[in-house]
């Protein structure tokens, strides 16, 4: 299944638009970071859609030190808040490896859970439609488990987390293009 | 055998009625009549009747003829028999001659006797006449008479002597004859033996010659035979080479049609689902010269009925088999052949 460059661009645009719609910050993403990460076979679709830093052009040297510090703290909080809006994490085909750009977001979620012990999270693992249903159930579970471990390592409590795998049963998007598959290979955090 | 038969036959008859007795009687009568005519003049000369009678009887016997039949016995036997025969004849001759000699002597004696008797008669008659006329001269004549008597006696003695001498001479002559014959016989015997030896040697030589010739002939025959065999082998080689060339041609021709048949049958064969690569069915088929199927015979089953049937169906589905035009090739390869169904590559 060769995907043409045109197709690829379209898929990227689609996924960016999707993220933009979901994200309240409306921040831009760093296009350059994921293209180098994707493998030729599995991830032409540009599913690396995580929001990056949006500090560009925000800081001002004219502010006072206090103002500046306050602003920074505010910005950091806002940043964390913004990061916590990202609840979907994507995977390469047949892997459960958390991508590097997802780590900061997951750390933010972990910190949030740590500071809110009454908050539970349901970690839902998914796979794309390719491959077999039962194996994909196990693969979705493995992805969910990977995320769960990361959260716990970074401050969340085991009692706050719960995992479930739907395998390929609940795709995020319908369709059988590479970008559809990329969006469906995911773990979703559902805060309850 | 025959005599015996006759004995058997004659058992029921009185002895006098037997032909032998009758014959004896008949001859007796004849002889009696003959003797009656003879007996007065020369009764002493008669041969003794019993021996004659007996000879007649034996002659009357229907003896098997002593004809010498030609036999396959070797020459020497034949020669010996001939010699014996000659010897026998010679002896018979000798006996006959002696008998004649004796007869002659007896005849002479009789003649002398008769002469003497006639002389005595004449003397008696002369004496009577003499006594009448010469009584007177008795005295002087007595001397003459005695002298004549003495002379007569002398002549008589001389005659007897001569006779004796003659007899002795005859005996000597006979003896001489016998000796000569004996000598002759010995000489002939020696000659015969020499001849026999010569013949034996000749036969031996001939035998050896024959054997040699036979051997030569055999050798010649063997040589001839070997020669013929070589020729035959050569011919066979040539024929085989020709046949081989022909065979090769037929083979290549047949291979072409084998491939065609294989292709047609592969297209016509639907191996059933149950077929495995281990299954093999063999069918012997017979074709008509037109290429049409004459008969098909399952000679080796695969053990799977569906498989066997699929093979039979394939073979029977061809309305006409591709076969070579050449009749010899057809007869050699395609009149009857075997088809083996054994899937190597199942779908």
């Amino acid at each position, binding site marked *: 299944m060769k995907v043409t460059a045109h197709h690829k661009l379209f898929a990227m645009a689609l996924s960016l638009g999707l993220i933009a719609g979901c994200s309240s910050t409306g921040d831009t993403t760093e296009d350059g970071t994921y293209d180098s990460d994707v493998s030729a*076979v599995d991830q032409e679709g540009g599913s690396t859609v995580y929001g990056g830093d949006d500090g560009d052009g925000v800081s001002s040297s004219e502010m006072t030190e206090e103002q500046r510090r306050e602003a920074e703290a505010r910005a950091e909080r806002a940043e964390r808040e913004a990061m916590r809006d990202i609840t979907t994490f994507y995977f390469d085909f*047949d892997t459960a490896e958390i991508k590097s750009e997802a780590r900061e977001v997951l750390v933010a979620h972990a910190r949030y859970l740590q500071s809110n012990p009454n908050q539970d999270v349901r970690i839902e693992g998914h796979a794309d*439609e*390719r*491959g*077999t*249903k*039962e*194996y994909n*159930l*196990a693969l979705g*579970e*493995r992805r969910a*488990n990977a995320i769960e471990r990361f959260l716990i390592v970074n401050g969340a409590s085991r009692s706050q987390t719960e*995992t*479930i*795998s*739907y*395998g390929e*049963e*609940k795709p995020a998007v319908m*369709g*059988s293009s590479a970008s559809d598959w990329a969006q469906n290979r995911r773990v979703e955090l559902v805060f309850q | 055998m025959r005599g015996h038969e006759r004995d058997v036959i004659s058992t029921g008859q009185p002895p006098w009625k037997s032909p032998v007795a009758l014959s004896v009687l008949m001859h007796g009568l004849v002889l009696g009549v003959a003797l009656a005519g003879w007996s007065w003049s020369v009764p002493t000369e008669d041969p003794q009747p019993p021996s004659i009678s007996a000879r007649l009887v034996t002659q009357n016997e229907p003896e098997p003829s002593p004809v010498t039949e030609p036999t396959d016995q070797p020459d020497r036997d034949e020669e010996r028999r001939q010699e014996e025969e000659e010897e026998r004849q010679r002896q018979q001759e000798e006996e006959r001659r002696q008998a004649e000699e004796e007869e002659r002597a007896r005849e002479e004696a009789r003649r002398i006797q008769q002469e003497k008797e006639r002389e005595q008669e004449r003397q008696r008659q002369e004496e009577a006449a003499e006594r009448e006329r010469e009584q007177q001269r008795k005295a002087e004549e007595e001397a003459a008479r005695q002298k004549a008597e003495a002379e007569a006696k002398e002549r008589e003695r001389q005659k007897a002597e001569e006779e004796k001498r003659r007899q002795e001479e005859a005996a000597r002559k006979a003896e001489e004859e016998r000796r000569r014959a004996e000598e002759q016989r010995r000489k002939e015997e020696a000659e015969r033996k020499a001849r026999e030896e010569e013949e034996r040697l000749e036969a031996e030589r001939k035998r050896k010659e024959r054997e040699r010739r036979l051997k030569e002939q055999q050798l010649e025959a063997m040589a001839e035979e070997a020669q013929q065999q070589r020729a035959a082998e050569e011919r066979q080689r040539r024929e085989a080479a020709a046949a081989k060339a022909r065979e090769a041609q037929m083979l290549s021709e*047949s291979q072409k049609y*084998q491939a065609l048949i*294989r292709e047609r*049958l*592969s297209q*016509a*064969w*639907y*191996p*059933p*689902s*149950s077929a495995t690569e281990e299954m093999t069915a063999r069918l012997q088929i017979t074709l008509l010269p037109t290429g049409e199927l004459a008969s098909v*015979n399952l000679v080796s089953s695969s053990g*799977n*009925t*569906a*498989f066997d*049937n*699929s093979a*039979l*169906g*394939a073979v*029977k*589905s061809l*309305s006409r088999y591709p076969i070579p035009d050449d009749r010899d090739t057809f007869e050699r390869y395609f009149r*009857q*052949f*075997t*088809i*083996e*169904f*054994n*899937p*190597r*590559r*199942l*779908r």
Partner: protein
Amino acid sequence: MMGPQMTNRTSTGKGLSVVAWLLAIAVMIGSSPASTELLIRITEGADSAIPVAVVPFSESGQMPSGDKISSIVQDDLTMTGEFRPLPAEKMLSLPSSGDDVYFRDWRLLGQRYVLVGQLTRRGDKIEARYELFDVNREERVMGATASSSVNSSRSLAHHISDRVYEAITGVPGAFSTKLAYVTLQRSGGEPLYRLQVSDVDGKRARVRLESDEPILSPAWSPDSRKLAYVSFETGKPAIYIHELSSGNRTRIADFPGLNSAPAWSDDGRSLLLTLSKDGNAEIYKLDIESRSLKRLTNHWSIDTEPTWDHTGEGFFFTSDRSGGPQIYHKSSENAEPRRITFGSRYNARPRPDNDGRYVYYVHQRDSSFHIARTNLQTEEETVLTRTGSDESPSVSPNGRMLIYATKQGGNSVLTVIAADGGAAYSLPASEGDVRDPAWSPIVQ
């Protein structure tokens, strides 16, 4: 010629049979035709399917509406990929009994077999008298009668198909078996899952379970009376046993984490299944009666999709212990696993046939997913499908057909192929996806 003679003799006595054998051998040596006679070996058959004429059955009396029995038979035979039925309009005559079958005509049409029959209505029953003829051998292969109630005339048709198939191929037909599968409709926004059971031709489908949560992995019990499957109806996966006649259901496995991939044992007393209650996906054996569990695999990798092999002693499963999913086999519950597949980096969900010759599975080649099989004796792998997003292979109980799910126009559909990869036959698609097919055993 010799064969029958010999069999005659063997029946008369042992000594005589020995004599007959010696005779036969002597005759064979004496004539020895094998050595001189031409031998032609045929090692390949026709690539095409067997031409067969299913003549429309004559009918007397009122027949049920719907498909004709002979056309159902025709479709059954077509579905196997092994037969190529002659369309009725091309037939020169339409005989309904053997007396009217002229082999020459059928031979001209290139047909190998002719099926003729008569249907008679007797009360609420239909009686079928049918005969199968071999055109080239000019023989009647089979003749029989069968009957069914008017309402189950399709069963009658499938029964005839089974008999015809077995008569020709030597393998029992599987047309009277059932399929279980899952349909998914998303038209109304919310998904709707349905577990259904139908005839092998997809007809007479009946919904057995409906849910707006996923239903997965239906598996037939050996007696064809029950299904085991995975349902998310409680919000998380659990395994249920569903008795079809009564509709009674039992939740047999509801452990934390995964409860998936149930597979029945031959005796119907236990299930193989995949649980992740101990950390990751492992294979367990669950005794249905006692509910006792025995763990059969222990590895940090994913072990799933178990299925018993034909011996009932060992089992196949999928594991990614080598890095990607591959098929493994354990010859007994405690044996070391042996890897079966090496052909590509993705081979999963093994399904062995019933005689241990092949194992079928999903096989990735390049970026496509096909159904492939490996010959367990030769270890030769063959890709069977040309479609590209193939899933869920299930072998027919006679080992001759394979059903699997593939994509068609964005939807999942079921396709039947010959188990050796012959012609495909798509089952009529309902709305939405049709997936997870499972072929029932043959039940006598």
